[in-house]
């Protein structure tokens, strides 16, 4: 079962420049495991040293925040779209 993961620009280089990747997995947890297997380097960007999902990256399944569902255990179905949204500061002179 495959889902589509839409990557923010800061993570695209880990996937060789791809904007979206197809990944197998029945839960967010499985998808992220497979992301790391397919493209080494994701885990260190998505998780902190204790293995918790970094708080500055929001994860959406279709349009719903996984924190309003079952977090990393949120179940997925074929064709779901996962979007990763990191915080951005920019505005005025952008992130001095």
């Amino acid at each position, binding site marked *: 079962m495959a889902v589509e993961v839409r990557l923010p620009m800061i993570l695209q280089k880990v996937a060789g420049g791809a904007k979206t990747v197809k990944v197998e997995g029945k839960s967010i947890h499985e998808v992220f495991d497979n992301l790391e297997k397919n493209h080494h380097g994701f885990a260190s960007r998505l998780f902190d040293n204790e293995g918790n999902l970094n708080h500055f990256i929001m994860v959406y399944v279709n349009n719903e925040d996984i924190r309003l569902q079952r977090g990393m255990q949120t179940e997925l179905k074929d064709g779901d779209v996962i979007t990763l949204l990191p915080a951005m500061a920019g505005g*005025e*002179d952008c*992130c001095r």
Partner: protein
Amino acid sequence: MADIRFSEEQIRRYSRHILLQGVGGKGQRKLLGASVLLVGTGGLGSPAALYLAAAGVGKLGLVDFDIVDLSNLQRQVLHHTHDIGRPKVESATTAIHDINPDIQVVPHTVKLSSENALDIVADYDIVLDGSDNFPTRYLVNDACVFKSKPNIHGSILLFHGMATTFLPGRGCYRCLYPVPPPPGTVPSCQEAGVLGVLPGIIGLIQATETIKLILGIGEVLSERLVFYDALTMEFKEVKYKRNPRCPVCGEEPSITRLVDYEEFCGLR
């Protein structure tokens, strides 16, 4: 506010609003009676300020301690080549009054800080966050929560932007992002660049939200966040909710006063 009588000039200036169903004379009076604080007069604040001024928002507060630099002019349309070297609030005030001398501009040529933020925010109905760094984002957020002010958020990076409207009691920036990225994790626009037109789009979404909120029309982006990709020209909307465990706006807040935001963001 209801007592504001239009001058002949105002009737002509705002005629397209006065004609517009949903705004009308009543709505225009609301705009003229409203006050908005713009945090930052750069990429996001520039288009927002120009359109809010043109719309006749009666009082615009401008917070910025920066000086106009040549590299700003690729996107910060409040400022012009002849303004290089001027304080941004000065050139912004000139540009705003060139469009509409009918409104009041209040310059705050200071760095927004834990010492002054609550006093400054308290004087306005709505805050529009066009700041450029995480410490200020969290400071603006917390000050708005403590003063129960709507916080119209916009942020940009590279080719992407996001916007949302945090209404009091309906979630805040910390509900979305409880902590900022560690320094160096997310590249800055200064390092990675930003498409010049991008803050125009996002800043005007913020201005639109502000005007809707003042007029009480439509549906603001409360509990919704719009994410914009300039490359694919896609707008994506995602939902969020107030986090009951939010340290600032949750049921049992652990942060009840402004803190040291440089330290909080790992910059000290």
